[in-house]
């Protein structure tokens, strides 16, 4: 076999798989069809729900550069762009991939193939009734993304006033053969509307939608913010967009309260959905795998055939955080076939002395620039490339270098990648050519190199044990995956049983008890049942957890912590649950035999959620309620079922359930405001007003099921670890791509982090161990250098620095009465160095001594 893994596509899922595999030491080859790496990433201007980027947090270790630069730099990843894949053939123990790149046909064999080929965007010219491909002022959402960039950069004069967004163009549409929901377009449109509104507040933006599917973590808040910004939301499918010949304006036809309405807009954006990728279809057909079933529902197994995986949006439309998690999940599945070696501990090099021989060099400078510099520094040398630089350093025995380049990002990164050619980091200074006072800068840099006391790189060993807090589904899956990677695990479970919430569900009992059996057989997993977490101390690499049960107290030493405290059913949140006729949908299984005998059943969605006080969408309730309703209808077709909702959020292929529910005669009523409920002689009277038509419905129902959602269990853990939460869910370091990283060494998965389906919990909890293992297998953490340090001789323990630190990176040492620095948290701001009266706290790169000398020289 030529390669261990071949990944087709370098989008979010593909590159996430590659990064996670690379850190585990598994080499992969990425074949990318386009000229640039990153799939749709280069075409996106900002991302929801942060309105910033943050994809660099996709990398399991500290991000340095944009992941698409890192892909090319990574020693375990090979990338080929402009690769046109012709065929995948099955061979013994793997696959042979035939692709064309640079006008040559290549063949490569591999044990594992990951199809992360993404999706095609729906071609809006298939929707001429909406003006797609006909009018110049009707564009697709992806093209709008480019336009927003141009508007922001004042490259495009956008003088339109009224803008319409039309959702579900090319999805949720049987006429064009797209039954599914594309999942991300609602949020995508909201994001664009918000960006536009920020750039040009005078714009009048309207979003026409069927259901706003803001189902992710914090998405509901994002949606509310958009509404508060004055973006209009109108629930109606758009029938037609016509351009009035006289004015050039667009007339948009839609329905309002059951009547056809026409409104005039200047510009329209069609939120095009995801289309099946033609390449994927062709490749799978070549392997005799039936792709047609895929148009109805996703593949049941991620490993379609042995060694052939499907990842990301090629599997199902999903947004970026889900795709990144998905990529890591695939990496976890592949990792099962390989053994990992733990890294040897390195012996840190100690070079305390100052630099002896200092060189000044430039790379590829223009002749006149070089001449100008040589007037001041006769010894400066202009080199052709980094190879020459390396030769220059070795030849002259240089151990301190001042490098002047025009592209600091390129050369700086490359030099760092090459270990600064053996020069200590403190004595290697790169200066961009376009600096003000360039000559003075170089002078002071040389002075700094001459005077700086070189430090040892701070390195800390990592304790080779992971503590998992919570023994539910998420905890069990994380622990099993970690143990399979050869890492010791301790599960701390508060109750006397593993299995969490699922153990009470009869339909899941067998599944969960099989899992528990596997955990108990695994000798790398230690299970502490009945133990509660009391306190914690330490930092990434050497945490100490104090746990306590009725019988004993224990201390667990561990290198990293996974929080998987899960969720609990939200009950009694709606005011009139009597648990006789009105009860939560969690009791559905328990009360099933009663329910099928009923004549009429009302299901109330978003009971006590998506309100002002609790702006959370619990993601699972819509689908769960529809599944329940379908189950009831199947056993008793005569039951009348009403589902009262705010939006039906059956994203992805779950849309099929929604459609079949309607076909079965289940009524969906979108409430204008909370319904009035009266109990009357054992019947429940529900009065609700339909938003679209304004019609009033009076339903006499036997039972009322409340979809109340699942609350995260974080109130205790939050205080112990001093974590931040939003709506009860743990807040990650970065919402977009580093979803599961909470703090250095502390991770979270499952319901305590975000609302998820059971399948998604498994996916997330399988993906997370890869991120954790990447750090554990390194066995040591090298700190960032840009941090504070303490000269303990001068520290009096006044704690001024601890109060001043904005990121809580300063704390009092356990053993001595001095204040120390947690380098994993320190951002290198220098505030503590400023407040320290004794000059005990100093910044590594700006020590007082060398700084004073540098300043002296500068003036």
């Amino acid at each position, binding site marked *: 076999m030529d390669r261990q893994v071949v990944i087709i596509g370098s989008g979010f899922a593909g590159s996430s798989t590659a990064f996670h595999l690379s850190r585990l030491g598994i080499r992969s080859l990425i074949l990318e069809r386009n000229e640039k790496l990153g799939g749709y990433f280069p075409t996106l201007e900002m991302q929801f729900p942060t309105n910033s980027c943050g994809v660099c947090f996709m990398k399991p270790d500290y991000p340095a550069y944009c992941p698409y630069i890192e892909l090319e730099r990574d020693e375990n990843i090979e990338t080929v762009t402009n690769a046109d894949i012709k065929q995948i053939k099955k061979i013994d123990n793997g696959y042979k991939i035939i692709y064309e790149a640079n006008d040559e046909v290549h063949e490569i064999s591999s044990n594992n193939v990951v199809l992360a080929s993404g999706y095609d965007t729906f071609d809006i010219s298939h929707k001429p009734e909406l003006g797609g491909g006909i009018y110049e002022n009707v564009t697709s959402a992806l093209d709008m993304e480019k336009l927003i960039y141009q508007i922001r950069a004042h490259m495009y004069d956008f003088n339109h006033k009224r803008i319409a967004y039309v959702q579900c163009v090319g999805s949720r549409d049987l006429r064009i053969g797209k039954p599914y929901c594309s999942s991300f377009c609602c949020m995508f449109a909201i994001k664009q509307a918000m960006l536009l509104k920020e750039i040009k507040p005078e714009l009048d933006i309207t979003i026409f939608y069927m259901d706003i599917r803001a189902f992710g973590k914090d998405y509901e808040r994002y949606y509310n913010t958009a509404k508060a910004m004055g973006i209009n939301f109108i629930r109606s499918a758009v029938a037609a967009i016509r351009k*009035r*010949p006289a004015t050039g304006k667009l007339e948009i036809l839609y329905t309002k309260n059951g009547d056809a309405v026409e409104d005039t807009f200047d510009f329209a954006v069609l939120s095009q959905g995801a289309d099946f990728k033609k390449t994927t279809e062709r490749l799978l057909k070549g392997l005799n795998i039936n792709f047609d079933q895929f148009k109805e529902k996703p593949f049941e197994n991620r490993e379609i055939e042995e060694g052939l995986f499907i990842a990301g949006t090629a599997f199902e439309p999903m947004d970026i955080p889900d795709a990144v998690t998905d990529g890591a999940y695939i990496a976890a599945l592949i990792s099962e076939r390989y053994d990992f070696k733990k890294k040897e501990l390195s012996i840190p090099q100690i070079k305390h002395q100052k630099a002896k021989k200092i060189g000044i060099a430039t790379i590829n400078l223009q002749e006149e620039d070089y001449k100008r510099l040589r007037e001041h520094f006769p010894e400066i040398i202009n080199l052709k490339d980094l190879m020459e630089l390396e030769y220059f350093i070795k030849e002259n025995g240089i151990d301190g270098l001042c490098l002047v380049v025009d592209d600091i990002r390129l050369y700086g990164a490359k030099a760092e990648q090459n270990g600064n050619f053996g020069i200590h980091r403190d004595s290697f200074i790169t200066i961009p050519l376009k600096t003000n006072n360039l000559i003075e800068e170089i002078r002071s840099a040389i002075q700094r190199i001459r005077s700086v006391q070189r430090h040892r790189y701070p390195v800390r060993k990592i304790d080779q044990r992971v503590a998992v807090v919570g023994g539910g589904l998420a905890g069990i899956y994380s622990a099993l995956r970690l143990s399979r990677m050869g890492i010791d695990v301790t599960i701390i479970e508060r109750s006397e049983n593993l299995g969490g919430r699922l153990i009470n569900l009869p339909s899941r009992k067998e599944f969960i008890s099989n899992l528990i059996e596997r955990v108990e057989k695994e000798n790398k997993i230690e299970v502490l049942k009945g133990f509660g977490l009391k306190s914690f101390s330490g930092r990434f690499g050497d945490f100490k957890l104090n746990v306590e049960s009725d019988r004993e107290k224990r201390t667990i030493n561990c290198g990293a912590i996974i929080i998987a405290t899960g969720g609990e059913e939200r009950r009694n949140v709606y005011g009139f649950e009597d648990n006789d006729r009105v009860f939560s949908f969690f009791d559905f299984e328990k009360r099933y035999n009663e329910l099928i005998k009923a004549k009429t059943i009302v299901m109330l969605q978003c009971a006590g959620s998506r309100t002002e006080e609790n702006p959370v969408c619990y993601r699972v309730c819509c689908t769960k309620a529809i599944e329940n309703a379908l189950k009831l209808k199947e056993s008793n077709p005569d039951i009348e079922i009403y589902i009262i909702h705010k939006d039906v959020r059956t994203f992805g292929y779950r849309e099929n359930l929604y459609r079949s529910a309607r076909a079965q005669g289940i009524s969906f009523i979108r409430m204008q405001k909370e319904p009035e409920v009266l109990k009357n002689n054992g019947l429940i009277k529900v009065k609700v007003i339909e938003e679209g038509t304004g019609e009033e419905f009076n339903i006499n129902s036997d039972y009322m099921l409340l979809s109340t959602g699942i609350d995260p269990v974080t109130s205790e853990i939050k205080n112990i670890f001093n974590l931040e939460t939003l709506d009860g869910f743990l807040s990650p370091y970065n919402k977009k791509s580093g979803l599961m990283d909470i703090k250095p060494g502390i991770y979270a998965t499952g319901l305590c982090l975000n609302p998820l389906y059971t399948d998604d919990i498994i996916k997330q909890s399988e993906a997370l161990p890869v991120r954790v293992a990447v750090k554990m297998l390194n066995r040591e953490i090298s700190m960032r250098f840009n941090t504070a340090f303490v000269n303990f001789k001068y520290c009096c323990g006044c704690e001024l620095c601890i109060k001043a630190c904005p990121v809580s990176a300063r704390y009092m040492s356990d053993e001595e009465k001095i204040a120390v620095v947690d380098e994993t948290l320190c951002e290198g701001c220098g505030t503590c160095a400023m407040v320290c009266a004794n000059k005990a706290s100093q910044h590594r790169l700006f020590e007082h001594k060398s700084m004073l000398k540098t300043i002296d020289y500068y003036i």
Partner: protein
Amino acid sequence: MQEITYYPGCTLKTTAFEYGDSTLTVLSKLNIKVNEIPDWNCCGAASAKSLDHRLSILIPARNIRNACSLKSDIYVPCAGCYNNLMKAKRAIEDNKKRLEVEKELNCKFDYLPEIYPLMNLFLKDEIRGVLRSNKFKGSLKVAAYYGCAFLRPEEVLRNEHPELPKSIDTILNDLGIETVEWPLKNFCCGGDLSLADSAIVSKLVDKIISYAKEAGSEAIVTACPLCQANLEMRQNLNFPVFYFTEIIGIAMGVDKDIWWKKHLVDPSNLVKKLKEIKG
């Protein structure tokens, strides 16, 4: 000499006499032999389908049965007739429904002729060549209007793109007439509501006419008799509406005054202009 099977339908013999007469005149000038379906009957129009689904299939199916003996493609000038005949044809194509139709009509469908709207005949290469050699020499802008029945339901007709129809535009362009881009090509004219609720039809027709005017056209050209009637009857802008066969007739020099007399909006100014710019 080419032969076609022709289904005129009732309208072309009565209210849309000018459409029927211009069609036959132009076809004879083009040397095409027209065989009317023997003993044809009404297509069922709007009445059959709103009263009895079974009859709405059987009535047009009888016409198809009678046409089988002629063994050539059927061309239908009227949009409503075309729509009804196609629905019957799709029923006959369905194995289960065919047995029912065969039983009722006492026949056997071994052969099924193709059914096309009349426009398709003029899209054939040899006829396009003739049209191109009869080009108008001068500028005139018109708006091609298709209505609904030639285009929808898409899955039954499977002929033209229901949102981007081109046939009438192509024919007119071949004749050297510029057609405007406008958004109401396939907009509904109100159809049968002309009798039941004329206010709705007036509203729709007003919109169609004013958009056509705004787009810079001097006339509307259509192929549907009901659309033509509605557009002329329910407007008050004096905007002429032609059948495309009439324009071809002028181009080939075979037009008759009797056609123009049938129009509700006097087209004589435009007819004069067309004759002036005729090649």
